[in-house]
């Protein structure tokens, strides 16, 4: 049968941003799909070569605009490795609380978007965004912004926790536990949802590791890898938590990884708040930093996967080279391999579970 070339173009109701998919179709079956990216390329790495280290932190917010605390953390961790700087304990605990809350917020958004993609118009999204709004309110009380926080900074965090913040967070987490049960009902008891996502887009574990997938995409295939456990940073080793995995590698496993990770993050935040030490929140660091000559590559586990920063410093005020290893870029490269022989409807579902955010893919 002849194949038809369909262009799911850059403007589309459900490609999560500007992505162009050139799909070769045989009837309704996908023979080949090629993602074309670069529509949101802003020349981030070149810009950073002309900015001072402290000026780059607000720029990193705009990378993965859904989870900006993680981007801040990854960059700041790399710079602190270059400078050999250790932030105080209280700052580390606040960083962990904020990062895990950010993980919950990002997974809530991913869960809402998958409902949209599969055809349930906005219902799941309204419910998950109700919780996400509460997290955004908490972050607004911390940093003053709802989406690009610029909160984690070189040496610690910018401002201390406002009065009553731990109580608000604990109250929110109690509500979240009930709401997660609601989401599980809406998903796991919905026969059509399960039929649409079970067995669709199976990614085998060996393929996942070879193709460079990380984060929920990798863990959904059953591979127990998480940068927070393998290459521990900050104070994650002080808490009692486990790496969650799915078992089959299909869309439903990836979605279930999101839900389980939200529960695990809420556990970590509760432990962190219970053990929050007192102290100052920021090391004394001058505004203009001149790290010694050297280079380093440091990674963290962002909600999408392994986010890495490679910084080459040459003793001057600007980094000589800054490279971002973005998880959404690598996860998206998995798409041509797992979308062979599926129907168009499945292609959109698979794309939704890979969870791309184009600020990060294109930089």
């Amino acid at each position: 049968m002849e194949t038809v070339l369909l262009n799911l173009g850059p403007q589309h109701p459900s490609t999560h941003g500007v992505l162009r998919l050139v799909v070769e179709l045989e009837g309704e079956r996908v023979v080949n799909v090629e993602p074309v990216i670069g529509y949101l390329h802003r020349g981030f790495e070149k810009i950073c070569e002309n900015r001072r280290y402290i000026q780059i932190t607000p720029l990193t917010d705009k990378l993965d605009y859904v989870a900006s605390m993680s981007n801040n953390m990854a960059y700041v961790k790399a710079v602190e490795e270059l400078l050999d700087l250790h932030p105080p304990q209280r700052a580390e605990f606040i960083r962990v609380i904020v990062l895990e809350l950010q993980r919950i917020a990002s997974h809530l958004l991913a869960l809402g978007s998958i409902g949209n993609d599969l055809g349930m118009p906005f219902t799941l999204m309204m419910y998950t965004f109700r919780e996400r709004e509460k997290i955004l309110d908490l972050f607004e009380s911390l940093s003053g912004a709802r989406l690009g926080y610029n909160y984690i900074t070189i040496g610690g965090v910018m401002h201390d926790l406002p009065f009553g913040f731990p109580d608000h967070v604990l109250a929110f987490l109690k509500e979240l536990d009930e709401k997660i049960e609601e989401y599980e009902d809406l998903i796991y008891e919905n026969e059509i949802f399960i039929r649409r996502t079970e067995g669709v887009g199976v990614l085998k574990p060996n393929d996942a590791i070879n193709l460079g997938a990380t984060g929920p995409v990798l863990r959904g295939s059953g591979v127990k890898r998480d940068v927070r456990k393998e290459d521990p940073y900050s104070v994650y080793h002080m808490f009692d938590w486990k790496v969650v995995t799915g078992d089959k590698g299909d869309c439903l496993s990836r979605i279930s990884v999101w839900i389980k990770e939200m529960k695990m993050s809420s556990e970590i935040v509760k432990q962190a708040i219970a053990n929050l030490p007192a102290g100052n929140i920021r090391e004394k660091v001058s505004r203009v930093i001149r790290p010694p000559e050297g280079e380093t590559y440091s990674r963290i586990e962002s909600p999408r996967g392994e986010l890495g920063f490679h910084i080459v410093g040459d003793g001057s005020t600007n980094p000589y080279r800054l490279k971002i290893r973005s998880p959404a870029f690598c996860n998206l490269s998995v798409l041509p391999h797992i979308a062979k022989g599926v129907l168009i409807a499945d292609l959109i579902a698979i794309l939704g579970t890979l969870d791309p955010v184009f600020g990060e893919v294109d930089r």
Partner: protein
Amino acid sequence: MRKEGRNDDNEAEAGERKLTVDDISPAFPLIYEIVKKVDGMHIQTCNKIWVEVKRENLLDFCKFLKEHGFDHLSCVLGVDMKEYLEVVYHVWSYIDRRMISIKVKLPYDDPVVDSVTSIWKSADWHERETYDMFGIVFRNHPNLKRILLPDDFEGHPLRKDFKVEERGWY
């Protein structure tokens, strides 16, 4: 070798911890095996080892690493040092919990190196991006074309001699 990262194991600054033999000894078996194959090595911590390899030996060295459990290629990037171009590969082993970062120096007028997509498929898009930004050509790459910039873009932006049109106020 350039001084990198946290500690240099030859000099100790006042108040800083020097990297001792006990820190590095867990990595000794690996270090013994690879020190013969590489041109230069620098140990940042016992989990992070930087090596320099000539471009002809790159593919063999990568195959060797893959057999020894280094199955996650985290990143491939290019750096424009003003006299030469450099490609850096970061490879992680889950079994040993070690990261080996491989550096390959390339001359400006002949920036060609073998592609490692036959070993780790994740190198595919990373190498396309390095080609896009630096003009480094990867031999035997399945689909080497520009990925982030439009197909008809001229020049390679991340090279130091590429001038970005700046507006007046910066």
